[in-house]
């Protein structure tokens, strides 16, 4: 058994008609980040380092809803959150409400390793970042024109929405899906396992377009959007509330343990239990299996295993 890695750039209502100028940069980014992860494993880095590295890259890419490129709150600002977990020890670190920290996932890692706590948020988290000398910038760094536009649309439609929502006209047709005002989130994540079965997961996000200030989603909630133990590592994406209610990340491991299902079966089972159109996840097991199921239209994803297999996809078969 060799190492394995899987990453995602968000699940959602990604239209099949996504124009090339929006699709190609994201595919390239996935390829690039996958490459970073593969190189890290080839250099014998620990899965925690691999997962953090890959998520940092995804955060730095402006095309995904994390770090630079994070969606905006109802006040036009960013509030970022992230979470990292080590499968072997079940140590974890989470952060929320970040406005100046360039790489939220790295701060989450520092919370895990340098504090007696697991979760720091808002001003307290920002103060800790400065104490640790982590890179911080002016908030405007994270804001992209695409997201300003998305916020404008959402506010015009009085909606809190997904970052992959199609332009307003098409939305009217899909109106029912967004009728309750809450929508799916993008989010980025990476799961990794080395040849010894050490597992790690990392997730990072800007949250929901037009979200209220102070809103926290599923990403930093252990067991909801992020979870790892000795069996598997999971990172979820989609509609925060559904993921929280379904304790999605935790349940994949629980189903493996209590029902004896394989990773693929367990992951598919869990995604099947949550409402259609709300959830996707990437997962790896201690034996090197990879699963990337989703019940949304699409999920930006990529994976690779030591034997040379690799894959980058957006739509296609949801039964993977």
């Amino acid at each position, binding site marked *: 058994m060799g190492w394995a890695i899987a990453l995602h750039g968000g699940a959602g209502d990604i239209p099949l008609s996504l124009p090339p100028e929006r699709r190609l940069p994201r595919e390239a980014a996935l390829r690039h980040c996958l490459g970073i992860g593969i190189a890290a494993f080839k250099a014998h880095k620990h899965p925690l380092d691999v997962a953090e590295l890959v998520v940092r890259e995804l955060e730095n890419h402006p095309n995904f809803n994390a770090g630079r490129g994070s969606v905006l709150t109802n006040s036009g600002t960013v509030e970022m959150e992230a979470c990292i977990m080590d499968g072997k020890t079940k140590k974890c670190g989470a952060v929320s409400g970040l406005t100046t920290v360039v790489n939220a996932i790295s701060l989450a890692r520092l919370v895990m390793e340098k504090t007696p*706590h697991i979760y720091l948020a808002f001003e307290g988290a920002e103060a800790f970042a400065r104490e640790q000398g982590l890179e911080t910038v002016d908030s405007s760094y994270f804001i992209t024109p695409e997201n300003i536009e998305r916020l404008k649309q959402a506010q015009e439609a009085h909606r809190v929405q997904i970052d992959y929502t199609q332009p307003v006209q098409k939305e009217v047709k899909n109106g029912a899906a967004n009728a309750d005002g809450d929508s799916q989130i993008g989010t980025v994540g990476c799961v990794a396992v080395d040849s010894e079965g050490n597992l790690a997961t990392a997730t990072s996000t800007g949250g929901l377009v037009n979200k209220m200030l*102070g809103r926290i989603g599923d990403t930093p909630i252990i067991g909801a959007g992020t979870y790892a133990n000795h069996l598997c590592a999971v990172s979820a994406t989609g509609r925060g509330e559904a993921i929280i209610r379904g304790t999605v990340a935790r349940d994949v491991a629980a189903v493996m343990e209590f029902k004896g299902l394989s990773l693929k079966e367990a992951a598919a089972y869990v995604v099947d239990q949550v409402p259609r159109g709300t959830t996707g996840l990437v997962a790896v097991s201690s034996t090197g299996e990879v699963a990337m199921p989703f019940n949304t239209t699409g999920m930006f994803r990529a994976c690779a295993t030591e034997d040379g297999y690799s894959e980058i996809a957006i739509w296609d078969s949801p039964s993977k």
Partner: protein
Amino acid sequence: MGGWAIAVHGGAGVDPNLPKERQEEGMRLLGRCLDVGISALRSNIPAIDVVELVVRELETDPLFNSGRGSVLTENGTVEMEASIMDGPKRRCGAVSGLTTVKNPISLARLVMDKSPHSYLAFSGAEEFAEKQGVALVDNEYFITENNVAMLKLAKEVNSIVFDYRIPAPGTVGCVVVDKEGRCAAATSTGGLMNKMRGRIGDSPLFGCGTYACELCGVSCTGEGEAINRSTLAREVAAVMEYKGLNLHEAVDFVIRNRLDEGKAGLIAVSKKGEVVSGFNTTGMFRGCATEDGFMEVGIW
């Protein structure tokens, strides 16, 4: 259906040398809160309302670590958090980083019922509280002499407290199953004595400190890290769901096998009207009552 059932807790991990009068004070308060819950259940008030009512009582009384009486951050201030979860559709609401909201659990309820989100924190949560018109007070209101003294002690031994040298009051919680078999859970806390500013514990995290679904309602207390790593509250429901254990077996299994070196306790009810508590700490302030007239309050 087995009738209604209710359980409350005031924290796991109790100093075995806690003066008798403090023990009795705690038990009296839990008894009083149980009575509030019992009256409500007898008036057919739904589980979700009962847990909120009871936790409000616990927050208002300065004895335990929630609302007034919350332990202090390293800066000597109070930062409170709470969560509430409604079993039937697993709707949930949570808040963190509150400094002026008199009853955090009620704000958590409003997040669940009146916002498009599940969890609001810090100034965003305070803003929401203002808009909702909930009772707001100065941070000083929550601070008790006892806790000021304890913070001083904690700083002297330079510890984040979970040790008996400095017996800190505990998180509070309530779980209820009503006559219709609906389960609900609510937890509220000031967190850890001498915690870093911005620190969030297990209490507001669904699946960790609080959880409710069709099968059961669970509220945990103890070492936040241990509770989060073991996703303790969800674990009880997961073994019931996936292993077919009943509530007693589930709580037993989870406390025995999931906490590793961590110290924690929990209370739980099932839709069948069962009520159970479990803890691997020395003591847990707790009480429970069932429709058939049974009632009990205890620590050890």
